[in-house]
């Protein structure tokens, strides 16, 4: 369209990158994040003295390249939303840098900050909570336009604004004349479309999408995902896409970062990450996804315990308290002593694990049903999928764990033994 989006010099991106290469933007970083930290103080006592810090984001380095969708996954409380919000200056960073085209976003104020806001927009998770129930759609979308109005764009004028609101309603698949309606008149999916229109109306280059489909039913979720993919092509957008649903992230992203307790633990091209995950946490996440294909029967890696508190993260590698690989390797010392560096394992594939080299695809395929195992339409049997490779992943007994970690919940049973070659599609 018009405005700043036109500045993006990339060729029209397509939604399907070839494996091994990133998105066909020019690969230049639009946003660089350097050692970013966001801490929240914990206050206690009548003097409200700061007694500690929640390290929501604790030293994160990565870049978002122009024209790509960078997916960020992790469980609740891992800091993925805080990270996104810090990048777009909705939270105050404690330290570090966020560079937008080489300029430090965190240092902006006044007019620069306002200009930056126009280039970086947000789509929020909750389509109900993020729309003011007392405002008609024209004001919800128009508010940002009004704030950014200048002589050039003429957004100060109601007529111009309303036309633009209608234009963008149309872009997101809603009717032009919905401008006078209120949020309660729309369904969840439609509200999310309004939230998207609001972000787009300012012609941003970068959109931080914070769990944009998590609150939606699966049939509506696919409508919104399709819309996002179309819009990305149409407007040359760059996305930071935060979600906890790994299938959604896999579907939409070009590169993916996995977060655990405020840190990135693994980052790679999407195909590489899902086919050759190397961090034990990533593998556990992938293993945990329930697969809607009943033919897929595999051992599941059950992570014990809960995510530790980010106010008091474990020493050394933060994942060591729940790590199956560490147990498998007989608890090497450096896991609890040294914080593993976020190092490059292969080109573009970074991992924060001392022992990432000891992970092999065969072992991964045993617990992650879809890894490197094609599921053709003519039905593999359970035996094919469950691979004969035997890994020695064991869940400790209740007693051991309770001793090891007081506050952790424990999977009550050891990982199920090999599934018997269960009902296969032959029955169908």
């Amino acid at each position, binding site marked *: 369209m018009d405005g700043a989006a036109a500045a993006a010099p990339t060729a029209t991106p397509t939604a399907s990158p070839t494996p091994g290469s990133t998105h066909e933007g020019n690969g230049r970083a639009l946003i660089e994040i350097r050692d970013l930290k966001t801490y929240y103080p914990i206050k206690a006592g009548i003097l409200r003295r700061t007694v500690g810090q929640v390290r929501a984001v604790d030293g994160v380095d990565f870049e978002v390249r122009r024209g790509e969708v960078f997916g960020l996954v992790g*469980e609740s409380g891992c800091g993925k939303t805080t990270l996104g919000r810090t990048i777009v200056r909705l939270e105050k960073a404690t330290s570090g840098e966020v560079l937008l085209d080489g300029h430090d976003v965190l240092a902006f104020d006044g007019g620069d900050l306002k200009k930056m806001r126009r280039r970086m927009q947000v789509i929020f998770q909750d389509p109900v909570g993020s729309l003011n129930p007392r405002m008609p759609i024209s004001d919800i979308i128009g508010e940002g336009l009004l704030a950014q109005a200048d002589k050039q764009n003429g957004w100060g004028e109601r007529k111009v604004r309303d036309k633009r609101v209608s234009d963008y309603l149309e872009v997101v698949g809603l009717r032009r004349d919905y401008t006078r309606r209120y949020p309660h008149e729309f369904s969840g999916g439609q509200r999310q479309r309004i939230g998207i229109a609001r972000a787009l109306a300012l012609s941003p280059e970068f959109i931080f999408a914070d769990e944009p489909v998590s609150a939606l039913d699966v049939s509506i979720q696919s409508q919104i*995902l*399709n819309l996002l993919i179309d819009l990305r092509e149409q407007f040359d957008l760059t996305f930071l896409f935060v979600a906890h649903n790994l299938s959604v992230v896999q579907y939409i992203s070009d590169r993916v970062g996995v977060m655990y307790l405020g840190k990135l633990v693994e980052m790679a091209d999407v195909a590489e990450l899902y086919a050759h995950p190397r961090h034990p946490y990533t593998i556990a996440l992938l293993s945990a996804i329930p697969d*809607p294909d009943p033919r897929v029967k595999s051992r599941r890696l*059950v992570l014990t315990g809960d995510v530790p508190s980010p106010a008091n993260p474990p020493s050394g590698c933060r994942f060591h308290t729940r790590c199956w690989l560490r147990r498998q390797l007989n608890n090497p010392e450096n896991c609890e002593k040294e914080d593993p560096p976020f190092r490059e394992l292969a080109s573009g594939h970074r991992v924060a694990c001392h022992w990432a080299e000891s992970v092999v695809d065969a072992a991964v395929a045993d617990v992650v049903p*879809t890894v490197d195992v094609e599921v053709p339409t003519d039905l593999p049997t359970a035996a094919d999928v469950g691979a004969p490779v035997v890994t020695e992943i064991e869940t400790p007994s209740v007693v051991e764990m309770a001793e090891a970690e007081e506050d952790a*919940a424990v999977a009550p049973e050891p990982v199920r033994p090999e599934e018997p070659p269960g009902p296969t599609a032959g*029955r169908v």
Partner: protein
Amino acid sequence: MTEAVVAPERRAGVGDVLLDVRDLRTHFEVMDGTVKAVDGVSFSLRKGGRLALVGESGCGKSVTALSIMRLIDMPPGKFAGGEILFEGRNLLKLDDREIRKVRGGEIAMIFQEPMTSLNPVMTVGDQISEAVLLHQPVNRKGAQEVALQSLVDVGVPDPKRRVKQYPFELSGGMRQRIMIAMALSCNPKLIIADEPTTALDVTIQRQILELIKSVQERTGTALLLITHDLGVVAETVDEVAVMYAGRVVETGTVEEVLLNPRHPYTRGLLESIPSQGKKGQRLSAIKGVVPNPFRMPKGCKFEPRCPYAWEAGAEEEPPLIELGPDRTSRCWLYDRRYADHLADYEGRAQKKSAEVAS
């Protein structure tokens, strides 16, 4: 409607049927009219069996569960028809005293939100023993022992300390374990789990799913799982009933329903899940939205969104048509008169799955 089409031999009360829901209709009288949240739901569950009710928000799956537990507020709710046979007794006909014995004793329920469904001012031990005291011939001390044992059964570490804690001191996954312990404490014949893992993270969800499965296998309790997640369905149960707009639209074993869906809605749901094979392709979305409960379509409730629809669906609602033993679909495709439409449906379906595979 012609509900009689439904598998008659299944209805004849074969000895091992534990729960038989027949043409259940739960309606709510609200200011703007009647919301027919559940309007013709039929399914049955065997002793020790595992069945999932699947559907999107508003399809009536939770109301069905609450109806079985008789936890529907009346008014505005009312049972407008049908019956719920639990071991041959119609739960809808029981008086308050009788239903209280069933509720928690013979049928236990695990709710979605473990924080709001636990009492914040009672210790975990007291909450569990409360139910035990109500349903079992034990004294207070004995009830506490049962509570402790049930925590051990669900793998709660350090159970002696946990019984004295309050819900706020526990994590989400731990609370859900407490809920499961509570449900199990009275050795129910049926556990209804309403979205038990929806509020949990994926690694915690995995723990709870494994727990539910192992507990179910160990105790032989029947499981009625309410969920929207077809992945959870595939891994947890043996049989599925898919719901849409207050009706069951398809039933069958997990393998049959998920691999060879015989209702366009089920097919649409499966096709809209993002997966590895669909990377780079558009997701096939189901067009439109769930119908407004006050303006339900006249014929088939899915007809306005159905990519395969023809006139038959617009005019008359199809019955639940029997396709085989324990296999039904509420779609005109399976009426003999429309065999040519069925051929078209199967052809298109095949083409689609070939596309995804390639």
